[in-house]
């Protein structure tokens, strides 16, 4: 009975078609963008291709894109610098909050819900509110003060939620066992807790990195002088009239995929390192 080949039900074909349609909808338009980004120097914003070249990438990197194209490399540097700082801060604060939250303390629920509530606040008003407050206090908005602060209001709730879940399920017996074996608080943290929750820590860092890199609603009023990547691209979309915009799309996708692949590699490396101990 178990060896008889089962006929696939109709629902299989329906769902498979749906998945195929979704994949085409997602990737086909993107493919157009990638192809068009290699348009020849005389080419326009749509098919047909007038020769092939990397002309528009050169234009992009030289920051001489002309009408509507600002200094993309500078914007990228600003964005990635901020994303790295935000990711590291989110990771540290989330882990610390998760550690604190393992014990019940007065007002613990209030902290929890206020953290979660900020996920659903409309980002554009959060950003506006921060800018306004800085203005009222007579401070200048700046990427490393209001800018990072505004982005943390977006990345921290997710990071903290992940850590509350990860550490909420953390078996306290591991720590007791470590105590029993003579580990002090620092050793318990670094030698037992961190290695066990490492996948969660990596997840928070990567998620914060990408959401900071993409954030615009909270960021735009708070970074001060100099645009970030999403701001630059939004401007480009409304103003640019050349295939430079496609080159931006290709590079942005490339960077995103690189990040995803890098984090996957880190994860598999960790998994390998664990199983390689058994190989001896």
């Amino acid at each position: 009975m178990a060896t008889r080949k089962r006929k696939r039900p109709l629902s299989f074909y329906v769902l498979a078609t749906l998945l195929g349609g979704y994949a085409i909808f997602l990737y086909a338009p993107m493919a157009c963008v990638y192809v068009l980004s290699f348009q020849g120097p005389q080419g326009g914003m749509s098919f047909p291709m007038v020769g092939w070249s990397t002309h528009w990438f050169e234009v992009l990197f030289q920051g001489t894109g002309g009408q509507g194209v600002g200094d993309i490399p500078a914007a990228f540097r600003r964005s990635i610098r901020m994303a790295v700082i935000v990711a590291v801060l989110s990771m540290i604060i989330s882990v610390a909050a998760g550690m604190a939250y393992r014990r019940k303390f007065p007002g613990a629920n209030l902290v929890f819900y206020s953290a979660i509530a900020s996920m659903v606040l409309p980002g554009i008003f959060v950003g506006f509110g921060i800018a306004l407050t800085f203005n009222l206090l007579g401070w200048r908005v700046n990427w490393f003060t209001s800018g990072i602060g505004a982005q943390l209001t977006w990345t921290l709730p997710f990071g903290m939620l992940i850590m509350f879940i990860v550490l909420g399920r953390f078996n306290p017996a591991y720590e007791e066992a470590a105590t029993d074996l003579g580990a002090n608080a620092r050793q318990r943290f670094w030698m037992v807790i961190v290695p066990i929750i490492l996948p969660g820590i990596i997840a928070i860092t990567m998620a914060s990195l990408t959401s900071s890199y993409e954030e615009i609603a909270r960021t735009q009023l708070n970074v001060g002088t100099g645009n970030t990547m999403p701001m630059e691209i939004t401007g480009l979309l409304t103003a640019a009239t050349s295939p430079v915009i496609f080159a931006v799309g290709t590079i942005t996708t490339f960077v995103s995929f690189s990040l995803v692949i890098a984090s996957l590699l880190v994860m598999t490396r960790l998994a390998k390192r664990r199983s390689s101990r058994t190989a001896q």
Partner: protein
Amino acid sequence: MSLIQLKPQTAPAASGKSHLKQATQGHRFDAELVAVTKRYGTGPAAVADISLRIPRGSYCCLLGPSGCGKSTTLRMLAGHEDVSEGAILIHGEEVTHKLPVDRGTSMMFQDYALFPHLSCLDNVAFSLKVRGVATRERRAQARQYLELVQMDHLADRLPNQLSGGQQQRVALARSLITRPKVLLLDEPLSALDPFLRVKMRSELKRIQKELGISFIHVTHSQDEALALSDMIVVMNDAKIMQAAPVREVFETPTNAFVARFLGGQNVLNSNGREVSVRTDRCRLGHATGLRSVEGQIAMIEYQGNIVRITLQTPLGDEMTVLQSDTDYFAQNPQIGDTAMMSWQASDEHILAPT
């Protein structure tokens, strides 16, 4: 069965491991609880004013129903739970407020709590690592302890690649490498299947005898406690009902709770007093000079060399008779028969009121 039989027969092996033995000083008791109480919040005490002394080199089982305070008692001994009142001594030295690591105790957790990210070897070496012992040295030592529990061939596996029994051995090695004066075990066998449970319990006993330290073992299984213990501590409702050598607890239970919980006894009323009579001293039928009670046979369980017959008395009590198979086949009682159960007055043991 004597304890000597359980010792490893081969002299060289025993002397080869003698360096693992814990040095002993001039104390009489390995562990003492003096009027210890534990309260969580404002409710009734989880452990109420218990005192206990565990002689040197004992295998001691804390036995009792779920929720009676066994784990709490063990965790207070380990230093993982604060004591509300009273004092705790290990090897005659007060440790009530000391850190777990400074007490000379080591605890084996119910679910073993092996660190999932470390190999067996590194799990065992953990306590040496936190003390700053060099890698080679600590791994060499850890390997010796894995040998003691016959797990050296799987030293490089991760815990989730081991069976329950193997994990337990590793957890045992990880505890023993700290050279504890007293090893504390919280229901160490409950996660194992019945076959392994019996195998591991003889292993535990072997290792305890080999090391000569005290093991304090929490269990709710009577069989386990009887098979392992030098000393049994029967607990109920946050208090100690009886703490004595295993034979004393079995033969002369202090009250009906102990008699019933340990099994092997009928608790009945004789001349207005509550008494216990061992089930193997009771018989079916009646003869002059014997005391007896009438009942209906409710159950007959054939167990090979013995047969367990359960009678229901008119008052609704259940009585058990353990018969040899020859007696059983000679009498051939049937379920539903009315029968007499009788015993000698001298086999009665008077119980204290609970």
